[in-house]
């Protein structure tokens, strides 16, 4: 069910600042809400998002309750060399999604 949309420019000039945009499907249940019967709905959120560029970590974000469902994370990085941008989302209940995107730097 988990699906992610990633937008990275397919090619860039060396040294150029590129914008990376990610969107992932996730309910981000806060853990503070109650069901109609009064029972606490257990927390179910993404805890950590990490982006690595050819193995080097370039961006990391810790996520908390009260971040909206389907988190959209955008950041910029410098296009240094051709290769792969790898994305990893991890969270409650063993949630783990990995995606990667190729980039050509010339």
């Amino acid at each position: 069910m988990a699906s992610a949309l990633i937008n990275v420019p397919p090619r860039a000039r060396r040294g150029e600042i590129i914008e990376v945009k990610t969107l992932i499907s996730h309910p981000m249940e806060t853990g503070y809400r109650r069901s109609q019967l009064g029972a606490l709905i257990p927390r179910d959120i993404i805890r950590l998002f990490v982006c690595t560029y050819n193995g080097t970590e370039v961006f990391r974000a810790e996520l908390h309750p009260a971040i909206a469902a389907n988190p959209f994370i955008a950041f910029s990085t410098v296009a240094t060399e051709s290769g792969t941008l790898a994305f990893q989302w991890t969270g409650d209940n063993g949630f783990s999604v990995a995606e990667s995107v190729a980039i050509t730097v010339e």
Partner: protein
Amino acid sequence: MVTSAFAGEIPRSERRSGYAFMSRETRAMQDDDSANPGMLWVLEGEGLWNRKTGAASRSCADCHGDARASMKGVAARHPSFGAAHGRPVSLEQRINVCRINAQKAPALAWESRDLLALTAYVARQSRGLPIEIAIDQRMEPFLDAGRAAFHRRQGQLNLACSQCHDDNWGRRLAGNVIPQAHPTGYPLYRLEWQSLGSLQRRLRNCLVGMRAEPYDYGAPELVDLELFLMWRARGMTFEAPGVRP
């Protein structure tokens, strides 16, 4: 054809999509496919479109081929007349007719993730096209019923849809701007819902707000109202999956 104008009806030149009433940030979210959360459902719907299912072990694509061609404009023409039903059917109902008759699979529940995903994927193929609702003799009584519902006062607040959306659009209801109620972007992602939702979900929301008892999903009254609203928005640009606050 029905051409009579009601007192408060919005002139064609002044019609505006709900998009026009949104903040710049929310508009940017809808415009950028990598920021529009509705695209997550579109992506999922594309997967479902090609997946074989049901006793017939048939996928949508087995009959309809590439949705980008075969489904172009389809959502902008719904609700349309369903010969087997003898009345207009919404896009969601049309998908379920296919599931039951062609795929021999159980109908998908309203607002279920799969039905929303399939609807979103089909609706996405009509983006940018004008809404075209064909009204013939068979459809006319249902359009009239929808129009009557739109102008009928109901609920404990004794309000009609038209009192907000024809007579007071552009003004504020508490903190929110009242839009003209043109269903140009459904199914759409409502930030308040944190999810994609159908037009019927939205209509039921409004009915609850009027302290009226909402009709059940798929009720003929809701489909008639959908038909009237789409007809009222005819010629406007379809923008699914939309984003609304």
